[in-house]
């Protein structure tokens, strides 16, 4: 029996899990939960994810939600298969955790409302909060400077190898790079280098194809 991922392959949080599955060469099945019709708020989905969000997984009797927790679980369970996403020893793993947590607390808090305003609202015919977006971009600039400094002396966020710390940024970054925020990344030499390198990975290319972004 193959693990079932409930969500939509174009949504950022489910993409985090799909990327993990692809990097770890784990077979999976996507069960579409339609966000445009708010299927995630309906009783059937609330049984899987009581906060009414995607993704959730069902793996036989085992169930889990929160995309980062799901990714960590599979990265741990399949440690010896595919890409090593968690670091080889405790101190390295903790640095992976550190930069993965930075994504939650410093990056996503800014990236999510920017993507909401620049990408999602127009699709739903809603008005973008232009003033808010400018404020968020200014704050994002400060955060990206810290990343730029980190990546000046490290090939990837947690060191020499691609890990969960890099992977967890990719879905929201993918959307940001489709907006004028891409100028902020391209203007930073090391961030640009890092983004080009991680998006050349086969797992990312496969995900983009699944999500209909590449031919």
């Amino acid at each position: 029996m193959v693990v079932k991922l409930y969500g939509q392959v174009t949504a950022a949080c489910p993409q985090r899990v799909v990327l993990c599955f692809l990097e770890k060469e784990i077979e999976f099945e996507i069960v579409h939960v339609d966000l445009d019709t708010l299927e995630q708020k309906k009783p059937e989905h609330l049984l899987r994810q009581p906060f009414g969000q995607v993704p959730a997984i069902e793996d036989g009797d085992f169930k889990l939600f929160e995309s980062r927790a799901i990714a960590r679980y599979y990265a741990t369970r399949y440690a010896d298969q595919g890409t090593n996403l968690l670091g080889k020893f405790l101190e390295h793993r903790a640095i992976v955790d550190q930069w993965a947590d930075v994504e939650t607390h410093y990056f996503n808090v800014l990236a999510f409302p920017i993507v909401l305003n620049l990408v999602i609202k127009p699709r739903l015919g809603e008005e973008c909060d232009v003033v808010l977006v400018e404020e968020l971009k200014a704050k994002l600039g400060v955060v990206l400077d810290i990343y730029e400094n980190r990546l000046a002396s490290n090939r990837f966020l947690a060191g020499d190898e691609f890990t969960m710390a890099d992977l967890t940024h990719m879905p929201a970054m993918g959307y940001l790079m489709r907006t004028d925020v891409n100028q902020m990344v391209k203007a930073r030499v090391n961030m640009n280098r890092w983004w080009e390198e991680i998006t050349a990975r086969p797992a990312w290319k496969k995900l983009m194809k699944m999500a209909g972004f590449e031919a």
Partner: protein
Amino acid sequence: MVLKVYGPHFASPKRALVTLIEKGVAFETVPVDLMKGEHKQPAYLALQPFGTVPAVVDGDYKIFESRAVMRYVAEKYRSQGPDLLGKTVEERGQVEQWLDVEATTFHPPLLNLTLHIMFASVMGFPSDEKLIKESEEKLSAVLDVYEAHLSKSKYLAGDFVSLADLAHLPFTDYLVGPIGKAYMIKDRKHVSAWWNDISSRPAWKETLEKYSFPA
């Protein structure tokens, strides 16, 4: 050389402190004067480039992000004190799930309440009544989900106390104390019982006794 935790008087560092005390690990603390802007000085930014607390130094090893520190300590000292990560990969998956729920869903509205009710006047910005109201509503909806879950589960990740429960201690302590919204916990039977249980653990009592913000 003993492990050092920077900024013990503040809430986020207490996630690290309570974990260290639960595991019986020796440590020292180094005060950081946020009022004097010590966290924005180069010496501190070398430890934590985002200029927030905590930062932890363990010999030559540096780590920040309080939940990453919790994971590091729980893993490094796995064989002593309570097992805060669960016994199996699946139990750990549940711990990670609820640790992420705390970070992504519980913490943000509670942080707004903390900043706007406790610290607005001290930090010199106007307290946003609308944001306070919205944040309380969001947190209330989250606590309803916790209430349903804790009616079937003694602790968040199962029948054992874990990092997921401990991560909630510092800011919930603010909620029932200086924020003045203890009713949000006390009016929910199972959340209240869970809160009484985890907040009366000796390790938490010791944390508050030794590291509460000086009056």
